[in-house]
């Protein structure tokens, strides 16, 4: 693979900022959609920026995911497509969520270009806001070492942290204090050329490091998933896993994919019952837990979302009870996606399996059922 290597980019944020400024100046884009540090300093937010001066404050690769980019983007095209060109600067998992949302008609990607970044992972938001300086410092060294310590569990097992199977236009990787620019689409090629770059540099070093990292990640991933499998096996395991859940539904609220106007599990019409009903339900169990439908909520959400789950882990960040909800979604998502040979966000033209019906599929699971 060839691309452009920009050497001595010790502060990657600064370098990317320069690129963004140049794209606005050249009127390649009317605006960029990029994370910016909030004025108080302990968190980040996405900003739609037209003004170059404000662009100076952007942090394209923040150390936390205070909001998932796709979730942030949703409002932008709620009432129809953009009438101007923008560049979204996002982490791979955020772009993948964007692609899923476009398949579900929740965002419109017309006139949207993507700049994806190598992502070393992020810290837990709750940890970060206590000691932002400490984490800022360790985050900058993270790009050199790429070690998983201290990162969120989902980031530690992420196997799509770079340009692997990504529907982005232009990718920026980091290696040896250099920025690696790789155009991935025709649109990306145009952006790349307009910046005056040529794909002449050999990227073998970056790629080797990436593949080595991927190999290590897969190892951790398999181990973690096996553990999760054992931990959550059967109703009892699952019950135990979610024992701390207080039914706040925060995981759903921060999820980039969850898009319902009103969650089915919060709907009075659908799930609230006559008082007598609850008493009847105690007949078999002896007692019934309130708030109700706690497990049903998680299982239901899994049914609805797992095919599109990109494993970004933002749900786990949002959980006030520290339930590893991001990990179980990532694990279940992985299983279901493999079952249907589907990878969310890989290709905007690849239909979500729930939308397609094939007469011949899943026989291996049927057979498995029969032998039972």
């Amino acid at each position, binding site marked *: 693979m060839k691309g452009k290597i920009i050497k001595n980019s010790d502060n990657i944020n600064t370098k990317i900022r320069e690129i963004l400024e140049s794209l606005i100046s050249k009127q390649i884009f009317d605006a960029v959609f990029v994370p910016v540090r909030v004025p108080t300093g302990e968190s980040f937010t996405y900003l739609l920026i037209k003004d170059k001066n404000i662009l100076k404050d952007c942090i394209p690769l923040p150390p936390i995911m205070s909001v998932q980019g796709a979730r942030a983007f949703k409002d932008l095209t709620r009432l129809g497509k953009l009438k101007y060109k923008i560049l979204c600067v996002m982490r791979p998992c955020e772009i993948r969520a964007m692609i899923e949302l476009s398949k579900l008609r929740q965002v419109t990607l017309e006139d949207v270009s993507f700049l994806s970044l190598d992502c070393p992972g992020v810290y837990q938001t709750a940890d970060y806001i206590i000691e932002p300086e400490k984490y800022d410092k360790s985050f900058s060294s993270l790009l050199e070492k790429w070690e998983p310590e201290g990162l969120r569990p989902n980031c530690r097992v992420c196997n799509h942290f770079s340009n692997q199977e990504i529907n982005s236009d232009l990718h920026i990787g980091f290696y040896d204090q250099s920025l690696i620019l790789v155009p991935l689409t025709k649109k990306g090629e145009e952006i790349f050329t307009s910046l005056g770059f040529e794909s002449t540099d050999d990227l073998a070093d970056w790629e080797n490091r990436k593949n080595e990292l991927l190999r290590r990640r897969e190892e951790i991933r398999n181990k973690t998933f096996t553990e999760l499998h054992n931990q959550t096996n059967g109703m009892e395991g699952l019950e135990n896993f979610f024992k701390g859940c207080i039914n706040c539904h925060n995981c759903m609220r921060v999820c980039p994919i969850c898009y319902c*106007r*009103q969650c089915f599990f919060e*709907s009075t019409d*659908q799930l609230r019952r006559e008082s007598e009903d609850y008493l009847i339900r105690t007949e078999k169990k002896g007692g019934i837990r309130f708030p109700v439908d706690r497990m049903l909520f998680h299982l239901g959400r899994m049914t609805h979302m797992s095919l599109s789950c990109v494993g970004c882990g933002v749900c786990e960040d949002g959980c006030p009870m520290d339930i590893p909800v991001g990990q179980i979604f990532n694990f279940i998502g992985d299983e279901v996606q493999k079952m249907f040979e589907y990878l969310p966000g890989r290709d905007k033209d690849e239909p979500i399996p729930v939308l397609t019906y094939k007469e011949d599929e899943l026989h291996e699971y049927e057979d498995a059922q029969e032998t039972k």
Partner: protein
Amino acid sequence: MSRIGLFLCECGPNIAEAIDLDKIAEFINKENKVAGIERHRLLCSEEGKKFLAESIKQNQFDHIVIAACSPKQHESTFMEVLSQAGLNPYLLQLVNIREQCAWMTPDKGLATKKALRLIRAAINRVRFHSKLHEKEIEANPDVVVIGAGMTGIETALSLAQQGRTVYLIDKDKLGGMLKNLKRLFPGMLDPQRLLQEKIAEFNNQTQIKVFEDSQVKEILGFFGNFIVTIINKEKEISLKAGSIVLGIGAQEFVPEGMDQFGYGLKNVYTALQFEKEGLTKIPDESKALAIIHCVGREKLGYCSKFCCVNSMKLAHLIKEKRPDIKVIQFYQELCLPGKEYDKFYRETREKGIEFIRFDKIGVGKNGNQLELKYGSGDGTEKHLNVDIVILATGLIPNPETKDFAQMLNIAVDDYGFFKEEHIKLGPVSTLTDGIFIAGTCQGPKDIKESILQAKAASGRILSALIPGRKLPIEAKASEISDSLCMGCGICVQVCAYGAVSIDERKHISVVNEVLCRGCGNCAASCPSGAASHRHFTNQQLYYEAREILR
């Protein structure tokens, strides 16, 4: 609080002896959920129906549970009684305690227990039944026929009736594939005369409006009310019709790139090319001609059905013109289905046509001649020089098939032809009401079968769309809540009947009541519960299931 009436049918001894109905009545009575319990020896009898109707009126029941036989047997009977008693028929829940309990469970105690559960479930469910109304819509009896080959012409002719107009549209002129043919097998009729006769019939039919050289630009609407926009001589014309028949035909498979058949060499024709041009240009010095069957069959994955007989027809045509030429048919399996073709085959052989079964075959050039190298099962390669080779290739879909499929939201099959509603029971209908497919656009076939399909499509339309009559709408259909829908479109994809679409202005899904058949796919797939089935709501199902599992 609703006044539920429970009716227990004894079905003579069938239920009464197998289930303890007294015990059931006693239990239900204690639960205090029904306003009355009635028992009858045979509710489906005339006397029983009268009893049911009167009891409903007297007791002012507003929801009814009947525990009797299978809904398949008597649901419609009892729904009618409800109507007669002035109650909306959908306020009924029928419990099958005969087939599912009395006849299934020999132990009376167990059968009674099971029946009781089912009855309690029905009582719990029926409370949530709402009145459903069987609506009707105005329907246009006119028909748009797209494609004016033999199929389209025949469809138009058999549809044109008093009070019904047929618009026959073709991007070219009338006649389709027929224009290329010299004869029709097996009776060797003249297709051009047939065409002339059919077109002459148009002149007596003011009901048929022909639009030649016209493109279909857009089709909007649904069964009973379609608007078809066509472009005719750069002018847009909008046609209103209740139904659409697609008769856009197919085309001959041309074996380009299949080198072993020598396509591209001089004097190598496909069957259609030969009939169109080659027949009149047989060089004088020609002595032998080979027809190779099943060319491309393996690649296409199907037998086109007509090619064997068509190849024999070509042999007849050649012999008629040039009795001196030797004609050899190379075939693998002779497909001569039906009562006429074995005879035609014998007649062909009697004319001196030779038939050779091959297991492999190749065509090459040999001087001015063509050389066939073939095997006939005994392992040796044989050679034969001929002057002309005809490749019998079969039919492939018209390339426009997928455009129309997309425009009308109907399916195509594995081979690219339009997909029928049911391979056996619905060969000319599609899953979308009011859209029919006829002729070779549905699959390879001969003229005779195309005509039959045209007539079948007309039959379906003459039966369903009648001037002055309204179309009934399925009452047990789906609905989508405006306020809950986020327009993700999952329901659009899973609807087999093209009944759900996106309202682009409001960014939500909407159900077309006319097309919806109430399968409930949309309700099952909707994550937010915005889509629901009117007669299978979550509430109805929940309370029913809870009682069964209790």
